[in-house]
């Protein structure tokens, strides 16, 4: 209550209208209603300045990178490598060559699976995931486990959506060589105790991949402070273009790993019978990269930093608290994931209506949420539901958006009695 009625809310200091003005799509109408976009967890909308950064490159500084000895190629390479430096600085990595550009968060996980785990784990070794992982941090492990005879273990999730630390302590003992867990759950909003997870894993001799696809959008991330070995992020969830993601990896690990895909730019020499490989980061970036998307991504990250990651976190925390309070008042509505410090992601079910019906009805109210298993079927199984509805917030959402959400949910109750 206090949060909802306080006279000084973060909205007063956080200029959300200026932010909204950067996002053209927020002025769209859907079914005759102004759009309330609460599906940032699936993909964030794009600020004009990201589109501009991409177009500016295509108009003034485009060519393939690293290859030409002409001016356009130099300009393009400078912008592309500047983007790498922007990501480095955003994550506070030690070196920009620890930043590997990939397609998306999924590919970042696959790279660790098919380069690191495939090479360094031995038959019988275990990979430890958790019950709240996104499929992109589950399926690659199944695939490499099948190929190499590895075991995939999972840390259970507690009833309030927490990471079961006691179970983790026990499971770590069971031959675990790699821990691959989410930093923030895309369903529960739970922020896992990453530092503790990493410290314990290292003590047990295991490396750690954090799936940060849902974290960096809600809070500052510092890979060196975390001391994490690998960190996956995805551009389209960070207000950047689609088609670009990043795997951060510690230099000595990336150096030791074999390449992932073969092709141009990642080689040192090629003869008809043998290839040798280039140093980082080129070794992992075969072929022409997503040049302009990397540049757009860099612009998105700088934009977030200009607003302030702490400010974004505080602002979204207020929205989350407000939305939680209002939704909790709806009869028959159950929220999944109630851990303190959780991110602005609210999954819920209504006792009388299936989530799919909820999302259809909300959509006709102009409110875009997502319904389904959210690519987290094991977590659905854990909570015994086939699907949930999920409202996920971005820095451009407002309390007015929450009110529209709640109004529409009340209409669902009206229809389903």
């Amino acid at each position, binding site marked *: 209550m206090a949060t909802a009625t306080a006279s000084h809310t973060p909205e007063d200091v956080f200029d959300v209208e200026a932010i909204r003005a950067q996002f053209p799509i927020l002025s769209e109408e859907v079914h005759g*209603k102004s759009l309330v976009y609460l599906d940032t967890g699936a993909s964030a909308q794009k600020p004009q300045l990201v589109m501009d950064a991409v177009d500016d490159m295509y108009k003034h500084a485009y060519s393939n990178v690293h290859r030409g000895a002409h001016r356009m190629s130099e300009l393009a390479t400078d912008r592309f490598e500047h983007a790498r430096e922007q990501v480095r600085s955003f994550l506070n990595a030690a070196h920009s060559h620890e930043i590997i550009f990939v397609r998306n968060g999924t590919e970042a996980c696959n790279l660790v699976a098919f380069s690191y785990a495939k090479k360094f784990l031995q038959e019988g070794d275990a990979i430890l995931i958790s019950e709240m992982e996104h499929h992109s941090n589950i399926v690659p492990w199944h695939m490499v486990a099948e190929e190499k005879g590895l075991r995939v273990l999972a840390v259970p999730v507690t009833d309030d959506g927490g990471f079961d630390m006691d179970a983790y302590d026990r499971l770590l003992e069971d031959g675990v060589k790699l821990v691959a867990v989410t930093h923030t759950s895309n369903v529960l909003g739970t922020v896992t105790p990453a530092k503790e997870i990493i410290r314990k894993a290292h003590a047990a001799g295991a490396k750690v991949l954090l799936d940060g696809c849902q974290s960096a959008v809600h809070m500052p991330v510092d890979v060196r402070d975390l001391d994490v070995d690998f960190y996956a992020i995805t551009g389209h969830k960070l207000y950047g273009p689609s088609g670009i993601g990043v795997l951060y990896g510690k230099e000595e690990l990336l150096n030791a790993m074999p390449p992932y895909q073969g092709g141009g730019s990642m080689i040192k020499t090629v003869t008809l019978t043998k290839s040798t490989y280039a140093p980082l980061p080129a070794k992992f970036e075969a072929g022409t990269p997503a040049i302009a998307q990397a540049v757009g991504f860099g612009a998105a990250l700088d934009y977030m930093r200009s607003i302030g990651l702490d400010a974004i976190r505080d602002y979204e925390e207020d929205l989350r608290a407000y939305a939680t309070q209002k939704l909790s008042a709806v009869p028959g509505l159950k929220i999944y994931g109630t851990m303190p410090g959780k991110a602005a992601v609210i999954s819920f079910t209504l006792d009388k209506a299936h989530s*799919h019906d909820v999302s*259809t*009805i909300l959509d006709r109210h102009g409110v875009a949420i997502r319904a*389904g*298993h959210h690519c987290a079927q094991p977590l659905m199984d854990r909570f015994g539901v086939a699907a949930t509805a999920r409202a996920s917030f971005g820095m451009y959402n407002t309390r007015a958006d929450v009110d529209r959400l709640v109004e529409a949910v009340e209409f669902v109750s009206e*229809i389903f009695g």
Partner: protein
Amino acid sequence: MLDELRELYQEVILDHGKNPRNFRAMDNATHKAAGRNPLCGDQLVVYLAVDEDGKVADASFLGKGCAISMASASMMTEMVHGKTPEDAERLFENFHTLCTTDHTPDAPEGLEDEVEKLEVLSGVRQFPSRVKCATLSWHTMDAAIKGEEEISTE
């Protein structure tokens, strides 16, 4: 716009959705198939018992899903009862047209009543992403008749 919602979620659909008929497994099924909509996670199993006369003596289903898919499955099991598999397929075709085009197709001979009843689901036309929910059970029945074990509507 909200009128369209009211048309989609009519009383009869909400009723079938809440209290699905023939919602049970069947031991003596002659045909059985599982259907899944991987997008939303809906899944159901359709059972048919075709008797010596070549008529559906019993039809039932089990599964989880939204109001639309539950109601559609429930109505389907009621409707194919006593029909030949061929008639059931004809109804499916008719229903498919109803859901995916702008016009209500002419009813096949002898199936006028059924087609009329199905019209209650025609509101789904305004909701392209929900058409699969409405047709999942029918696709699954079709698979069962054709002897397939599993279908996926994506």
